[in-house]
């Protein structure tokens, strides 16, 4: 077998995604031929792809098929970095939800429907969400309801409501509930006041009650007559969901890190010196992809962006990531992707057989990793030994630009102010020794008017 299936795509029997000779393909299986042909002939694909709402593809030759039951093979445009809903900020999940509803509305107007509404069908490209599952569209049976309505509510509406009305950290529920946050759980966790909101009452609370009430009920009528849902009613349902999601907001302010850029310990000269050092360190690397770990609102990600085509800016703080995402949308930077990530507990491989969703490490390596003002948080704030930090970072990227912040720095003093200093090895010498085991250190730069040091290194890890 000279192809490898992409494991996030095996649940839908209409087709699957695979890689052959480093090229990404999507196979359309024979049973879905009529639906796929109708979709392509309807003009809906052209409409959505030209509007940038659906990933475009070109038809591949038949001999690129992976199995004998292929009726068509597509070569879709590749997404530079695959991210998951549990890594998105509030605004990213909200934009992904609105995109799904727009697709369903446009599909309905052309006599089609989305047969699933998974948040995993969306990726971010060029700072905006794009739908990646071409096989999600099928002709709508006249009078049929929206099969994916519950899935939409559990993948988008419930998490967004919980993040907006309860606590932004409820977004992490998506990591433990890969098939969406159950309606019943959402209904129980939401504040009582949401029962007074007609949209939330209908789409979440009554929806959860109806699920429980009709769990064991078959909906076929004894007289064989079919219940009918008109297209206008479906469009009204989609419109109601859209109004509900548009009304949700979350203000990313007041967290320690979202304000870090405006309220840090650098003097103006130190900040300028560090920016120049980082720009000089990244420029000769010619990196295609840079992962900026602990990116905050993306100040250094934007410097990295000048030296690379794609920067993924990770931060633990949802407020900082939200601010970064809003800035990306305003600036229209097509090569910067902000994501929420706790590096001390990074996204694992999960889903069926640990293969459906890739870990952070499996999505690498990056050409270069930027880890500025980060190591002291991991070493002192999270009690991670320097050697383990170095080992993990060496597996994430081929080159590393990182910073050592000494114990007498105000930020480290802040971390130690209420606790015993149990970190005797946390010193420049200890840092160089630990990182020297996993990297070759090329250059050391001292940041002006600061005790901080920026290191340029190359990983010793043997990447596949």
């Amino acid at each position, binding site marked *: 077998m000279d192809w490898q299936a992409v494991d996030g795509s095996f649940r839908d029997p209409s087709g699957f995604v695979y890689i052959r000779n480093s090229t990404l393909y999507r196979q359309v299986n024979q049973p879905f031929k009529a639906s796929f042909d109708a979709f392509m002939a309807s003009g809906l694909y052209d409409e959505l792809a030209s509007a940038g709402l659906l990933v475009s593809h070109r038809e591949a030759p038949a001999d690129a098929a992976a199995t004998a039951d292929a009726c068509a093979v597509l070569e879709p445009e590749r997404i530079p970095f695959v991210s998951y809903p549990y890594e998105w900020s509030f605004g990213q999940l909200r934009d992904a939800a609105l995109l799904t509803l727009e697709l369903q509305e446009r599909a309905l107007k052309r006599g089609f429907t989305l047969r699933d509404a998974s948040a995993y069908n969306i990726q971010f490209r060029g700072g905006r969400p794009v739908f990646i599952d071409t096989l999600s569209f099928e002709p709508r049976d006249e009078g049929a*309801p929206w*099969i*994916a309505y519950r899935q939409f509510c559990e993948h988008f509406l419930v998490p967004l409501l919980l993040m907006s009305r309860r606590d932004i950290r409820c977004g992490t529920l998506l990591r433990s509930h890969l098939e969406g946050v159950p309606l019943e759980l959402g209904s129980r966790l939401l504040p009582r006041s949401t029962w007074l909101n007609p949209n939330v009452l*209908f789409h979440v609370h009554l929806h959860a009650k109806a699920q429980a009430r009709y769990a064991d009920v078959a909906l076929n009528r004894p007289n064989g007559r079919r219940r009918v*849902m*008109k297209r206008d*009613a479906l469009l009204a*349902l989609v419109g109601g969901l859209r109004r509900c999601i548009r009304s949700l907001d979350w203000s990313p302010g007041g967290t320690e890190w979202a304000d870090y850029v405006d309220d840090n310990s650098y003097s103006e000269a130190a900040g300028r010196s560090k920016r120049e050092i980082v720009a000089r360190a990244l420029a000769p690397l010619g990196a295609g992809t840079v992962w900026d770990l602990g990116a905050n609102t993306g100040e250094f990600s934007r410097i990295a962006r000048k030296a690379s085509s794609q920067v993924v800016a990770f931060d633990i703080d949802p407020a900082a990531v939200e601010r970064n995402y809003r800035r990306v949308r305003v600036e229209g930077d097509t090569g910067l992707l902000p994501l929420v990530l706790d590096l001390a507990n990074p996204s694992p491989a999960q889903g069926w057989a640990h293969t459906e969703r890739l870990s952070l490490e499996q999505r690498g390596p990056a050409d270069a990793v930027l880890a500025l003002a980060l190591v002291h948080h991991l070493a002192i704030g999270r009690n991670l030994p320097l050697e383990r930090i170095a080992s993990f970072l060496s597996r994430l990227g081929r080159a590393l630009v990182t910073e050592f912040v000494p114990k007498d720095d105000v930020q480290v003093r802040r971390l130690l102010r209420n606790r015993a200093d149990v970190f005797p090895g946390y010193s420049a010498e200890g840092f160089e020794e630990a990182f020297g085991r996993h990297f070759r250190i090329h250059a050391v730069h001292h940041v002006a008017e600061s005790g901080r040091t920026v290191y340029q290194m190359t990983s010793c890890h043997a990447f596949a």
Partner: protein
Amino acid sequence: MYIDPTAGSLVLQFVAAGVLSLLAMFSRVREGAKSFFKSLLPGHHRWTGKP
């Protein structure tokens, strides 16, 4: 259909469709009634029975 829509979700959509149909019907009746009573006023055309 490869995902389970669940019966409760379908029932709720049919309820929504029913409510929307009723609202649309009331709206049509109201427009018809308004049109009828307007036609009784002097200076208006004869009521045709259409809203």
